[in-house]
């Protein structure tokens, strides 16, 4: 009985060696095969491929106010987006203008967007009933000065579609 046990132990000893060597060889086969396949390289040369780099359709890059070709946006200063933003990243500065019909109207002065506090949750875009907002594909946000992250989204000289008359 003891002999059988010893033989078994010795058998297991050699099986372990065989098992170990083959298992190591299997692992080496994987890495070795990738070594021989340059086509399997998945990394990209980033700044060089900037021209061909395309983000996905829905990519949430940076908030922007949509301007049409006449430099008009459709923000009507309802402040919903600012209220919906969990971080207070949107500040809408407006001025009161007397309209043609004599009533005072809110007109967008500055649409301030704090990129530094934005967490890209995307709550602002669907909240807008006028579809005035969207995310663009800009992803290179790095700047040296934090102040540069505070952006004014309405372009200079632009006006709202609502205050056309």
């Amino acid at each position, binding site marked *: 009985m003891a002999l059988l046990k010893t033989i078994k132990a010795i058998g297991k000893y050699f099986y372990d060696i065989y098992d170990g060597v083959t298992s190591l060889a299997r692992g080496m086969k994987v*890495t070795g095969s990738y070594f021989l396949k340059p086509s399997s*390289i998945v990394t990209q040369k980033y700044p060089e491929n900037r021209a061909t780099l395309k983000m996905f359709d829905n990519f949430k890059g940076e908030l922007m106010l949509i301007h049409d070709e006449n430099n008009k946006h459709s923000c009507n200063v309802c402040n919903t987006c600012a209220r919906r933003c969990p971080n207070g990243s949107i500040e809408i500065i407006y001025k009161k203008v007397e309209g043609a019909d004599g009533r005072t109207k809110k007109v967008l002065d500055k649409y301030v967007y704090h990129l530094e506090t934005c967490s890209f949750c995307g709550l602002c875009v669907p909240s807008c009933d006028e579809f005035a907002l969207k995310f663009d594909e800009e992803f290179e946000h790095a700047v040296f000065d934090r102040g540069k992250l505070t952006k004014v989204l309405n372009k200079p000289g632009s006006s709202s579609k609502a205050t056309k008359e």
Partner: protein
Amino acid sequence: MYDFTPFIESITSYLNENLSPFWAGLISMVLLGVGILLFYAVLGLYLVYAERKICARMQNRMGPNRVGPGGIFQTIADLIKLLLKELIYIRNADSLLFNIAPFIVIVASIMAIGAIPFAKGLQAVDLNIGVLYILAISSMGVIGILIAGWASNSKYSVIGAMRSGAQVISYELSVGLALLGIITFAGSMQFSEIIASQEDGWWIFKGHIPAMIAFVIFLIAGTAETNRGPFDLAEAESELTAGFHTEYSGIKFAFFFLAEYMNMFIIAAVATTLWLGGWLPFHLFRWGAFNTVMDFIPPVFWFFGKAAFVIYLMMWFKWTFPRLRIDQLLALEWKYLLPINLMNLILIAFLTLMKWHF
């Protein structure tokens, strides 16, 4: 063909004829020193670059590709960076030992190169106990690691030093016993004679399976001796942050880094010389034409080609396997490698006795 002996002899004789013996000796020393430095620097930089490229390819990456074509000057840029980095001194560290540790590591790796035959006649010293000399010198490096870990006065470093202590007491044996097999076959410890004994075939082929087993064991133990993955317990990045060289910065760290690669080269060079025929070209029986073509390739290329193959194997290990634990490291040596090694040596002795090797 491609014999370096006349070239070197002509230099020495030229110096001896034109200068006094003292100056001739000094100038030849300086020439040799410059040669070593150049060789060391080029080889070190090339090996670091090769490792980066190889591991990148295995990991589906591109590897260095910014500095120079294909990133070939990346390591030079790194070297300059490391040279210009601040040398941080650790409070309460043993400053003498702390500073001497990189020196010991570098000395071990440089002095071992002295006995390696790169080509016919291109060997600094052809000691009659060359194998023993390399074995003795290269194990000095571990002492440097031990000192570095202990002197840093950092807990991670001390644990790393303890681990390298465990490594030195284990793998030294396997390296020695694996080498003994070929010494038994060749009947000499002199590198030139070992190479001469392989004129008619490399030992890895002539020695049948026992020689191959010895080769594999030597590779495993050699990888462990150089503190490389999967045996990099002394620096074990994920456990000890950087192990024994946690506290070393700038150029002092670079020495440990460089020495690791040089030790790898030394192990590869020894494996090449003993098993793969050193600088001898690859010959097949009776294929006269094939053998002539092989002879045209200079021996230096043969040597470095074979060494590069062994180095590639070691890098392949490192980038595939997980790291061993300290008790497994010891168990692997004492329960597997050592008994196999002893049996293997008896087999080799038997083969030698019966003259069954070619």
